[in-house]
């Protein structure tokens, strides 16, 4: 007769509790590994970045406005590989960490095109959503610095790293390319004009610490023969005069970072190229990418 090596009395509260804690812990680690594997296999831009399949000649980065750089058009025109690493509401610190990771993993790209209106928004919330990539060289320390408690919990429970919106996007782009993403909506021009008319004035901001970080990154990139080009995308024509300090803001950025700004904020784009006062739609995105190519930005 076969004898069991171990027998557990599951009705004993102490034994049960001990087994329960063990199962929770071991399960957490196993599921955590499965989720990690899922993240690595996805076609989402950051999974490609850390999965070493994102080698490109041109890197595009920014917030929701950065997403409007139309990678397929740029790739088609330049006949080079392009990757857009932008994300909605991306803070500068996170962008710096991603670019630094890229430069540490891959041979340097020729140019990094940086949509700098992201400097105007200083929310750090998105960093907390990047925990699926916290094992990277630069994201992990950033999360630990900005959200120490969260970082601790993410190490305590590996499943917990995958709880945010970024992981949902990882799943969504599991088998499909995310580089042709573009705003398909047509903006309601009358409504855009109406909403702009209600705005008295807008002041663009740029945090000195963020500018310092870009400067450091630019020097690091330069050491690898890569140039960072700061870009300002077209704004809805009626909105431009509302930004009172545009010139001063640009001067401050140039002065602090030592980088040239390519300002397309006042490019004469038709109104129907916009979804709202700051975002281009599909037509606008294609036209903007074409304009950059024509102006020799990628040369």
């Amino acid at each position, binding site marked *: 007769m076969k004898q069991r090596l171990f027998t557990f009395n599951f009705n004993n509260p102490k034994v049960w509790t001990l087994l*329960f804690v063990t199962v929770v812990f071991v399960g957490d680690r196993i599921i955590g590994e499965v989720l990690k594997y899922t993240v690595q296999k996805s076609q989402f831009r950051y999974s490609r970045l850390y999965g070493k399949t994102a080698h490109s000649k041109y890197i595009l980065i920014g917030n929701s406005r950065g997403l409007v750089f139309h990678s397929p058009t740029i790739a088609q025109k330049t006949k080079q590989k392009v990757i857009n690493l932008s994300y909605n509401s991306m803070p500068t610190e996170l962008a710096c960490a991603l670019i630094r990771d890229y430069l540490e993993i891959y041979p340097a790209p020729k140019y990094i095109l940086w949509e700098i209106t992201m400097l105007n928004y200083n929310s750090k919330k998105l960093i907390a959503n990047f925990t699926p990539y916290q094992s990277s060289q630069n994201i992990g320390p950033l999360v630990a610095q900005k959200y120490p408690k969260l970082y601790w919990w993410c190490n305590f429970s590996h499943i917990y790293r995958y709880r945010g919106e970024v992981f949902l996007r990882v799943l969504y782009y599991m088998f499909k390319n995310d580089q042709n993403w573009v705003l398909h909506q047509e903006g309601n021009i009358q409504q855009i004009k109406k909403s702009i008319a209600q705005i008295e004035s807008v002041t663009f901001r740029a945090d000195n610490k963020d500018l310092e970080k870009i400067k450091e990154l630019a020097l690091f990139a330069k050491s690898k023969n890569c140039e960072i080009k700061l870009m300002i995308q077209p704004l809805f024509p009626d909105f431009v005069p509302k930004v009172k300090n545009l010139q001063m803001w640009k001067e401050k950025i140039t002065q602090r970072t030592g980088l040239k700004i390519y300002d397309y904020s006042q490019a004469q784009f038709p109104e129907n190229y916009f979804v709202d006062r700051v975002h281009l739609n599909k037509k606008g995105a294609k036209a903007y990418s074409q304009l950059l190519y024509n102006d020799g930005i990628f040369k």
Partner: protein
Amino acid sequence: MLFNSIAFLFFAFIFTTIYFYLRGQYRLLWILLCSYVFYGWWDYRFLILIAFSTAVDFFIAQYLHRESTVRKRRLLLVVSVCTNLAVLGFFKYCNFFIDSFSLILIHVFGENTHLQTLDIILPVGISFYTFQSMSYTIDVYRNKILPEKNAIMFASYIAFFPQLVAGPIVRARQLLPQFHQDQKFNWNQFTLGFAQVLVGYFKKIVVADSLVIVIDQVFTAPNNFNALNITLGVVLYSFQIYCDFSGYSDIAIGFARMLGFEFPVNFRMPYFSRNFSEFWTRWHISLSSWLRDYVYIPLGGNRNGRINTYKNLLITMLLGGLWHGANWKFVFWGFLHGLYLILQRMASPLYQRVNRYLPHIVQIALAMTTTYILTCAAWIFFRSESFTKALEIFHLIFTGDWSLHNLKNKFPLVKSIFVILLLLTCEIAHCKWNFTNVILHHPRLRIFIFATILWTIALLGTFNETAFIYFQF
């Protein structure tokens, strides 16, 4: 202290461990002390209010029991009810009444008659413990229970922390006898309670808090969204408030069960109700039964003809609405539910006649859908910042664009719908197979069920320690 905070987890662990080592008066003192710490964590100054309410009702109940003359007994009851309502009225409704009176004055006498409101903080859970305390004296007055002689026990009953700030409203006749027994550690009860606590956390952290991001945007600026977005926002809100509140109730009931106490059920899948009478036997049962026993029936209930029944229903639901908050939108929400109940009674003969021609399953589906849609319509008034905004939401739903193409917040929406479907699947499965037996009799399977809930919470939860919606009531 929030149930969904780390502080509470430590608090609950320390409390439970020591609780089972103590007996008799020491245990009662421990419950009282910890309950006051739990409440005082938020604002210790309001402990005076609980202590005051407790003391008033404790002594009045003693006098009530000793007094035999009807007039004096009635007077004592009036003193108790008025004191409780005065405290509630001052802290919760004072500014509401000043504002409403001010509006009337402005309408009649013009702009210069605006009255200054007072700077009052609303004590958390005041509506819950005031109602609980009031029901005790009323029950003593009605000779349904004997007054509690042990002041510490009575104070522990009023302040018992699992249900102190957001219910369920547990009547004295249900809970006080349980305080008289020294609850012993029962592993089966403990695991069943723990299961309910986990389900409560799932509802709160995974469902309710995950929906907040979508709902808040829709209700704050409905103009920025299309009709489909707004409709989904309303549907999600119906689940947010359900999961937030029933989640709290589950944690409270489950935790009490771990300690050996039995609380009444507060929610029984309310969105599966086929009419509004049924809805109110499934939604916030402890409040609806309180209103039935202490307002509707004393008013005459359904005993004095149809018109009086309608009047009593409307008064009860208006008070139920007002209980939720000092705002006309809550009163209107109560009014709508009163109206639904009246219309349901009026349309009942016609409804039965139509039903004869419909298959049973269609009847049920139709009844559930209609009840759910009307409930959601009422939630719009309940959640909107103002009456005007609620009407704007209705306008946008009926006239706006329903295209999927212009849908915003797609990722949070997908997650929200997924977690709701997950919840509904679990609730229906529980209804069909009753997991209680599995949890009790299959300890190995229990390990995996509990672990799966924990893993799901870790993966799908939103951990920002959002306060429970019903705290504000």
